[in-house]
């Protein structure tokens, strides 16, 4: 449990962090360290330099601008969990945050770190997909904005380039009802499967449903088949049953000693159905 030697640099601004990234080969960003440090200790990764961005105050904080909720990438899970603004503007995010790890983990781990890490069992990716988050990425040539649907490219990989930093995440802030259901791995507490769902409905008719699923597959995904089957239809238990029964269609689920693929796909169906039931009261 002793990492290989590395150099440590603390950045105090995004510019400085980007500069450090460019001037060091084999550097890695250190945010909350709650995914990176365990990997370092097991020597699964042995970067030459760590660039600590946790001291950059501009990366931290939650605000609402033009109806959107803007969350700095360095904001901790705990800050999101305790934010009244988040509770009001994005019930889904408010539902996810308290289900991550334990209190100690939530005090250190960051929203941006979790998204950038893209752990297949991470909780935030499901929610980012469900709210169609916009991820703002800073690089040498300014910033670019990527939608969650394009952000995750594979297991533990995203579109962030080695010389880029995720700076903030924008999510819709109009308070759309949402819920996150998580089946915890009894050992790790991570999601065997997690489903993040938002839904609007009016007088018994479904408006828009969005469903992000994590844990089941190497990359979190949107259960679009289910969404399409529901959007605009009248709410009924039968409709939800039928739609949810297709939630795992065509999935190639992960398999491990805790949950074979067949079990994961069962969980996807059951949990999507349960989340829909809670939001649509059917």
């Amino acid at each position: 449990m002793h990492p290989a030697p590395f150099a440590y640099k603390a950045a105090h601004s995004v510019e400085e962090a980007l500069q450090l990234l460019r001037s060091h080969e084999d550097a890695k960003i250190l945010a909350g360290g709650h995914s990176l440090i365990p990997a370092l200790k097991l020597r699964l990764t042995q970067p030459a330099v760590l660039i600590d961005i946790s001291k950059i105050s501009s990366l931290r904080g939650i605000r609402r601008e033009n109806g959107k909720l803007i969350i700095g990438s360095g904001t901790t899970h705990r800050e999101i969990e305790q934010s009244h603004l988040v509770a009001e503007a994005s019930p889904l995010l408010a539902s996810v945050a308290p289900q991550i790890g334990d209190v100690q983990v939530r005090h250190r781990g960051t929203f941006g770190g979790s998204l950038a890490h893209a752990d297949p069992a991470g909780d935030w990716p499901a929610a980012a997909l469900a709210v169609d988050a916009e991820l703002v990425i800073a690089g040498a040539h300014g910033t670019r904005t990527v939608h969650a649907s394009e952000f995750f490219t594979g297991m533990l990989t995203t579109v962030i380039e080695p010389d880029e930093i995720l700076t903030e995440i924008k999510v819709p802030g109009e308070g759309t009802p949402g819920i996150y259901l998580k089946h915890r791995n009894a050992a790790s507490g991570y999601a065997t499967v997690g489903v993040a769902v938002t839904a609007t409905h009016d007088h018994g008719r479904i408006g828009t449903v969005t469903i992000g699923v994590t844990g089941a597959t190497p990359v979190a995904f949107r259960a679009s088949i289910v969404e399409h089957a529901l959007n605009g239809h009248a709410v009924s238990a039968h409709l939800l049953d039928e739609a949810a029964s297709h939630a795992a269609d065509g999935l190639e689920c992960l398999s491990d000693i805790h949950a074979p693929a067949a079990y994961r796909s069962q969980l996807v169906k059951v949990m999507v159905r349960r989340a829909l039931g809670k939001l649509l009261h059917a």
Partner: protein
Amino acid sequence: MAVASPTRAFGASIRRREDPRLITGRGKFTDDMHLANAATAMFVRSPHGHARIVSIDTSAAAAHPGVLGVYTFEDVKGFISGMPCAWPTTNTGDTLKLATYPPLADGKVRYFGEAVALVVAIDPNTAADAVQLVNVEYDPLPAVINNEAAVAPGAPLIHDSAPGNQAFRWSLVGGDTNGALAHADVRISQTLVNQRLIATPLETRCAVADYNPASGEVTVWVTSQNPHIHRLLIALSTGIPEHKIRVIAGDVGGGFGAKIPYYAGEALCIFASKELGVPVRWSESRSENYVATAHGRDHIQHIEVGATKEGKITALKVTAYASLGAYPSTAAPGVPTWLFGCIIQGPYDIPNNEVHVIGVYTNTTPTDAYRGAGRPEATYILERVIDLVAAKVGRDPVDVRRLNFVRKDQFPFKVANGTLTYDSGDYELTLGKALHTIGYTDLRAWQAEQRAAGKLVGIGVSSFVEVCGLGPSSAANAMGFAGGLYDSATIRVHPTGKVTVFTGVHSHGQGHETSFAQIVARDLGVMVDDVDVIHGDTDKVQHGMGTYGSRSAPVGGGALRMAGMKIRAKAQKIAAHLLEVAEEDIEWVDDAFRVKGSPDKSKTIPDCAFAAYMAGNLPAGVTPVLEEQHWYDPENFVFPFGTHICVVEVDRETGETHIKRYVAVDDCGEIINPMLRDGQVHGGIAQGIAQALWEEAVYDENGQLLSGSLMDYAIPKASVMPHLELGHTVTPSPHNPLGVKGIGEAGTIASTPAVVNAVMDALSPLGIHHIDMPLRPAKVWAAIDAASH
């Protein structure tokens, strides 16, 4: 909670006196021993389950700045060539094949994580870097993990010295089992897997060795449950004279059996310290602990039962394949044999029973005792069997338990195989109390309603008796244990009346500093706070066998009581002398010797102590000083018992088990401290529930440990524990000086089958009668899914 009076010390829920130290970080654990110039030891470990070592190149590591030494088997074998086994047992002639257990791999690795080379460096980071620089070339061999596959023809051979990978065969026979099976109204055959578990104490194993070349003495701080046994085994295996070895096991953060064994890492710290002339420390990481520290359980059991149509069990036959892992650990052969087979009929009067154990080597971490050690494996069989019989004959499992119980008037009760005599018991009493607490009749009615509404709810009952307080030395010797199982106490009353107690048993979470002070405070009539308990240092404590098998209170406590009575006997002479009356004219009342008829005339033990140290005014023949020692060798084991009942709901769609209620009624004889007893029961139940639902050491077919970290090995968390409703009855042990029976393992033993029986009861409407542990959601759902197709 302060205790006002010494007379009320015994039996009071006094808060743990060790906690302020431990909670405020002022404990002294092995890893807290920071000696000047200490070097760090680390191990290069095998990435294979089974492989021939082609070559080991240590040159790059040895040349790395800060590295003090790199060693392989060839380097260390002159110091220690093999790890000793202290329980080399069998009862079937010469079937025992004890493979050599080298301290570092000798030509071959036989399990994933086996130590191949030792690196010693100036600090942990340097050592970790150097470990990566040792280049080992392996030629992988086929591995064998499954216990039955290991002894099947054609299995990869692990040790040349153990043909067919068989370590031993062992049998106990009582009555005529085959005959009874042939005549039984109903017969059941069932295979049960009692899965491999990893103890996971909060503190991993550590050792610090400081060899003094000038005096030839070595001090070893080590995470041990039994420092004197460690000292003996170090002496025997290294040739360092026993009186030159001081073993100190100070604060130890949990053992659960896994800190009984003497491990190579500990011996090699001594080797390196001797070799390099500096203290050497070693501290396992969690991942290392998972491969390098003994695992537990790991049986495959084939069971045959015969019963009458009323459910009275007439015959029980068990054939168990028990894995020792790749090498025989310190107590390994004794655990799946004597500790398992003797108690095979549990609390039931089963006149005909047989148990046959095949000890096998597999390409896995060595196994040894794990909380309950053998008795959970036996209890699980019985409690599953009772439920299977009940289902077969169509009776309530509670009635079948009652029908089979050893009755209260049968004690002392000799088991059919003749090995044990249960001291006392009242199994109806704990069962009745548990049923009453949970409201069993109403509960079954509730279950019927829930089932009608489509819910999968189940009720699981588990009654047990365990054999503990290990044990009479004659029995231990007869069972092949290479040691006595007596224990010791020294009570030193200081001139001021304050008391220091030296005990040969060891606390690593049990709270002896509190409970043992309570025993002595009562017997000496002094305040608990005036009694300090010393353990864990071979230079301070006379001798002792340590703690396992729920022996601390029965054996260590028994010794304390007897030593306390010796103090009282001597003090009584002094008191009579000081009071100027005959000894017969005084009596012990309320913490003091009082003159019969004039109780105001009294002398306390501190009064007598002062006189004993002044020494000028002592009765004839009484020696100065007030200090006594007692070596207590129990005449029998003790047999705590109880009944646990668990209520579960299984989620039909996800296979998750939710524990709705949990009632535990235990009888451990007299109670020293109810709070500590409850703590032991709580922790035990947590571990037992975890075996039922979550914990499992999983290897792949190549011998890789897939559950090699807390990310994949599911220990119970506080957040998933149900509320526990505890109840107690008190049936004192008739032969124990304190009347106590031991409570350290009971919770673990009882809870596993209670939970599994509950889940199986929940699933029984689907026609599911058995699923092997752990009952992980995925496995339960798969069974439900298969049953509904």
